[in-house]
């Protein structure tokens, strides 16, 4: 995947694995009005969350903040990346200008409504 940000990171392997972000687990579902996306991003605060749109690419990104003491050392680490990132491609009938984002307890909720004209409508069949 082409990604400007990642191209600027050092190319040596150790630094690469140290900074490579993890893709958050997501639920995605669609109803008549639009698409809802839920992403697990524990440790990401409102300040460190970034949701940005570039063309039809929607990127969700966040830094995990743990507030560590100076002398802390790692004893056990299952989460090995301090950063989440995932990119989604939006389709044309979605109204990217009206995306709503809400972050609560480490879960990001995005609501991407459909364009008004893209919502399914019933076409009346006339007799005669």
């Amino acid at each position, binding site marked *: 995947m082409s990604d400007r940000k990642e191209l600027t990171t050092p190319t040596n392997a150790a630094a690469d694995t*140290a900074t490579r972000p993890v893709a958050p*687990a*997501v*639920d*995605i*579902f*669609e*109803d*008549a009005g639009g*698409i809802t996306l*839920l992403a*697990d*991003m*524990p*440790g*990401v*605060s409102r300040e460190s969350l970034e949701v940005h749109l570039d063309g039809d690419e929607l990127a969700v990104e966040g830094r*995990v*903040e*743990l507030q*560590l*003491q*100076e*002398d*802390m*050392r*790692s*004893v*056990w*680490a*299952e*989460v*090995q*990346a*301090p950063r989440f990132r995932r990119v989604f491609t939006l389709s044309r009938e979605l109204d990217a200008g009206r995306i709503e984002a809400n972050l*609560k*307890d*480490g*879960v990001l909720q995005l609501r991407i409504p459909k364009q008004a004209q893209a919502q399914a409508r019933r076409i009346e069949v006339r007799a005669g």
Partner: protein
Amino acid sequence: MPATLFARPQGLFDQIDAMHRLLSRSLGVEGSPGTIRSVAQGAFPEINVGRTARSLEVFVFAPGLDASSIDVVVERNVLKVSGERKSDIPRGDNNLQLYANERPVGRFVRAVSLPEDANTESVEARYKDGILRVTIALVEPKQPQRITVQ
């Protein structure tokens, strides 16, 4: 600020551990060998543990929970964290199309063996931004005692 909490502890056994992991993966068994209470990687919630001179800090990555619904118990030097995460996918809408369902749901229990110098009388738990942080105080190391030979 140390960013080291996301690194696996380095040590003599690191390479052996890495090899083990590689082996177990090729045998189709997920996860790395650790303590008996550690489970396969990808378990929910994930846990990181850090240690300072004064305390042990356990970080439980459990987003989307109600602080009041999380159970934190210390029993015989084992810290147990349990709770339940409900699905956020609406039910009953027949027109709903589900494209991704990756977020784990259901009851969970995770346990961490505490070191011998943990002071289990002094445990604090806080839930913020989807991370449960449990701080366990450590008892002061005893000064070496000199015994006079009579």
